[in-house]
């Protein structure tokens, strides 16, 4: 479980996050949604420690991450898997080397064990025979899957995904969503996804946190979002004709 208590963050004189508190539970897909510029990416990067917060506390289980020193944070980071918006795969490394990278850095596995683990992770994201290809040689959807495979290679307790569906077609987006959901349940991870894809919200939103102008504006699940009368939330989620029809 991850718990946020009164998180605030400013850049120069612009306050981006204001007093955000919530919990992300284990074994569930937790979604952070909001308009572009609402502060959801800053929130995600603050949770994983890429941004230092100005005020508040971040707990990973019982451990207060926000007050930890660099060495202590390193231990937690080995339990974190992250899927970046663009995949963030290492261009100069093959698919196999990308997935094996965390294993190489933090385990004492021999070459055979590493290969087995890489193939296991690839099988979990339904990819075969791509080990020796470079990221530039595979499609965007496959890159996202490789990124997920790399994120789970160390068997993390926490999985973070920053807009995993951006740039993907609707069909591939659904595949990626389902994959993340299945892995979350199978590995009993605390998964936090940053998205503005409404299909994801409706498909895998076990918990949804709506960020509006840097503040927590609403939270609930995919069933509650249909019944919410929160104006800003409805303006965002049901902005399209299709979504309005779906609600009605």
């Amino acid at each position: 479980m991850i718990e946020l208590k009164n998180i605030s963050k400013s850049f120069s004189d612009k306050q981006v996050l204001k007093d955000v508190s919530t919990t992300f539970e284990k074994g569930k897909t937790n979604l952070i949604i909001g308009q572009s510029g609402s502060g959801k990416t800053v929130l995600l990067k603050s949770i994983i420690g890429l941004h230092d917060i100005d005020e508040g506390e971040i707990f990973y289980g019982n451990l207060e991450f926000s007050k930890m020193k660099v060495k202590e944070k390193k231990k937690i980071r080995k339990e974190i898997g992250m899927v970046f918006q663009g995949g963030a795969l290492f261009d100069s490394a093959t698919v196999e080397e990308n997935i094996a990278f965390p294993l190489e850095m933090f385990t004492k596995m021999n070459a055979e064990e590493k290969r087995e683990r890489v193939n296991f992770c690839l099988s979990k994201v339904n990819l075969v025979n791509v080990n020796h290809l470079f990221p530039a040689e595979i499609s965007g959807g496959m890159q996202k899957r490789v990124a997920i495979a790399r994120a789970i290679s160390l068997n993390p307790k926490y999985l973070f995904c920053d807009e995993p569906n951006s740039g993907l077609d609707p069909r591939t987006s659904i595949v990626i969503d389902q994959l993340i959901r299945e892995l979350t349940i199978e590995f009993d991870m605390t998964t936090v996804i940053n998205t503005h894809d409404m299909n994801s919200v409706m498909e895998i939103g076990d918990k949804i946190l709506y960020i509006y102008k840097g503040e927590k504006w609403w939270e609930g699940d995919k069933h509650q979002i249909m019944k919410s009368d929160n104006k800003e939330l409805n303006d965002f989620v049901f902005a399209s004709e299709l979504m309005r029809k779906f609600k009605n």
Partner: protein
Amino acid sequence: MRRVFSKPEKARIFFKLFIREIEMLGINSLGIVIIISVFMGAVITLQTAYNIESPFIPDYLIGLTARDSMILEFSSTIVGLILAGKVGSNVASEIGTMRISEQIDALEIMGVNSANYLILPKIAAAVFINPFLNIISIFIGLIGGYLAVIMSGAISADQYLLGLHYVFVPFYVTYSLVKTVFFAFVITSVPAYHGYYATGGALEVGRSSTRAVVYSSILILLINVIVTQLMLA
């Protein structure tokens, strides 16, 4: 800086990266170093020969001038400036692209000290391999001079070879190597800094790369003056 020079996560991985960077920054620069050096050696020899044409100046001094010019200045400083362009832009754009495509963030999230992992092997490799490039450049430059005197007939080959052996000061080589080590540090660390702190998109990576080359070149010239004053004065 402290993060760059902290202890690597795994010595085996550091060594692997170190070897890779020796190939990328050193071996791959060998071609341009050879081309520049052969022409520099030839031009220095010919210019000296045509400018000090006098019955009072012995011909072998042309060989001596070519030798000392290559050792003292050209093989260290000029090659350093050329490598600042080639290696510097390469390092800045590689690390800058990794920054804007979130690959550095990915390393940090995994708990890897990205500054140490990406920058230290480059600095170590350049500091290790560039003195060898310097020595190669000196030899190739002198061969270039030799070819120039043979082809132009400006002086006899024997006189040129005599000049190469005449009043050789080994300390000049030490001075040249010391300069090369400083330049190698600048050529890798300055571009790495600019790449590491690149923001924005491809345009900004390009700008970082240009800034890196300009600052590295200025620093090389400045260090050249300081080291010369300290070692030769």
